[in-house]
């Protein structure tokens, strides 16, 4: 199982001393945090994409390219890549390029974005959010999976004889997660392609996502990618730790009370009870996170939000030390021990190479079967007397 962190890259005033980092300080802090993730033994760093204040990461591959150069093992991902307002051609090229730069340590999470005006800023219509996510991703897939693409759609200029450059590393596209908090269409899309589904459930009660993930799993099986429990699920999480619970609550409360999204709303206690937010000792974080597996089934990726709401860099780095030393090793051991052998581990470039090879082999077998069935039918039809009830239709051969 993969453990990591994701950041939305908000520039927020620290409510305890009323200081606000500059854009430059925040961007540099994010890059430091990413390197720290590798240092403390985490597997994944995922970066958001935003085009409005108070968020700074508008150009994720630029930042991830830097992190790639500074790290050895860390898997670089996004949270999320805007599949609605970005040109799929540019996504295909940017992330294939990043794959080469990072030696395959790249995957992506697709999202539709959370801010209305971003659509018109990029010449799109928010009412077309789902159709944009569906069509753009269909094109993105083809740009990665097929060498030369002829394409015509509703939302961008047609392509004739286009080859996106560079080609994906080893001919295998990055693994893709689809993030959604309420749309069954996106869960259906993830299931159709056999992609991952990421439920960022940090702001919502678990029951909501339990149903959405169960639906994704069921549809993953329906589309023939494996059993429901073999689908790729990822979850968000949000924690703040101190050696003992009371200190954690005391330190985090001012940040919680003034945080973007939920600040000045519910109490810390209510929010902790109603959402996965855990403020307490490392052991409490372990206990809470283990319940996610009970709720959603064995899953492949756990990402924590650690660096928002104005928390200073120093505090975030201390939190990452605790996460890496005191929490993740135990979680990794427990989760891996509980995961049955037939359930896949977190997806990597290597596992994608194997999966695509298996898929190609299966397709070859299917094609060969069809060919031999056609040949057998052809042989049969030359006989004067049909043998038994062996018509083509009985063998599922069209037009027989």
């Amino acid at each position, binding site marked *: 199982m993969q453990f990591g962190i994701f950041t939305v890259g908000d520039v927020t005033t620290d409510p305890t001393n009323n200081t606000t980092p500059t854009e430059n300080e925040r961007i540099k802090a994010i890059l430091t945090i990413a390197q720290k993730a590798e240092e403390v033994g985490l597997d994944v760093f995922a970066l958001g994409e935003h085009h409005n204040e108070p968020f700074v990461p508008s150009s994720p591959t630029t930042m991830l390219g830097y992190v790639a150069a500074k790290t050895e093992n860390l898997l670089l991902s996004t949270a999320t890549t805007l599949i609605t307002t970005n040109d799929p051609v540019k996504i295909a090229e940017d992330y294939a390029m990043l794959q080469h730069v990072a030696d395959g340590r790249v995957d992506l999470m697709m999202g539709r974005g959370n801010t209305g005006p971003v659509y018109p800023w990029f010449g799109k219509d928010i009412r077309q959010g789902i159709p944009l996510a*569906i*069509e753009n991703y269909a094109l993105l897939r083809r740009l990665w999976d097929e060498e030369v693409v002829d394409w015509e*759609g509703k939302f961008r200029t047609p392509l004739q004889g286009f080859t996106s450059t560079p080609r994906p590393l080893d001919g295998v596209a990055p693994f893709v997660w689809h993030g959604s908090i309420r749309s*069954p*269409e996106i*869960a259906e899309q993830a299931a159709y392609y056999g992609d991952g589904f990421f439920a960022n459930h940090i*702001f919502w009660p678990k029951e909501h996502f339990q149903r959405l993930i169960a639906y994704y799993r069921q549809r993953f099986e329906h589309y023939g990618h494996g059993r429901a429990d073999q689908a790729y699920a990822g979850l968000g999480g949000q924690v703040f730790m101190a050696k003992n619970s009371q200190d954690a609550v005391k330190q985090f409360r001012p940040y919680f009370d003034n945080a973007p999204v939920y600040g*000045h709303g519910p109490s810390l206690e209510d929010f902790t009870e109603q959402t996965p937010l855990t403020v307490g000792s490392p052991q409490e974080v372990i206990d809470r996170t283990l319940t996610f597996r009970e709720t959603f089934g064995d899953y492949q990726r756990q990402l924590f939000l650690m660096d928002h709401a104005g928390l200073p860099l120093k505090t975030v780095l201390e939190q990452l030390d605790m996460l890496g030393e005191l929490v993740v090793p135990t979680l990794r051991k427990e989760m891996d021990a509980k995961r049955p052998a037939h359930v896949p581990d977190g997806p990597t470039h290597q596992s994608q190479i194997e999966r695509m090879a298996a898929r190609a082999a299966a397709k070859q077998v299917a094609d060969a079967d069809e060919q031999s069935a056609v040949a057998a039918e052809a042989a049969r039809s030359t006989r004067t007397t049909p043998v038994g009830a062996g018509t083509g239709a009985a063998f599922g051969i069209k037009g027989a």
Partner: protein
Amino acid sequence: MAENTTPAKKLVAVSAGLSQPSSTRLLADRLAEATVADLRDRGVDVELTMIDLRDVANDITSNLMTGFASTKLQEAIDAVSNADGLIATTPIFTASYSGLFKSFFDVIDNTALTGLPVLIAATGGTPRHSLALDHAMRPLFSYLRASVLPTSVFAATEDWGSGAADDGFPTLPDRIRRAAGELAAAVAVSKRSTEVKDPFALDSSFSPIGAYGAQ
């Protein structure tokens, strides 16, 4: 009881009254009692749920900010969404329904009340506020595609002390009876509470690869 009886109709009364005791809640009670009595006369079994928005006021505010409902608020939302009939009662504040009343309907999905028979009712200090029912409440429920009944009930303070009309105009109890009769007739034929809604139902035209450029 026989085993194959039809399930009881679900009637929900929402009161946005704030004081305790509240004349808005009193009006909701009277309307609910009259509707239940009318349904019983028609031989229709009914289950009544009373919701005081005062009890979930903080939860409503939190929901506006976080985007999700607490367990207690979700129960109230589910009750209203799956009802066969709704009695919606609010005090008139500053020429309209109260902010709390509006906020409750703001946190409900805007398709959840489609086809729901709604009896609208309000209280106010003087009868001069009564048009708020027609210029504010009726459009709110029309927007939600609920089916608002023709008779709405406004109770000014003075209505609670007026008896049988000397002047021939209908009194508050008359109006309550007439409105309850309209609601009972709609509830009696509603199938909303027994309909199973699939939250994951996709539009029949939906395709995971889209209609354009698909292979």
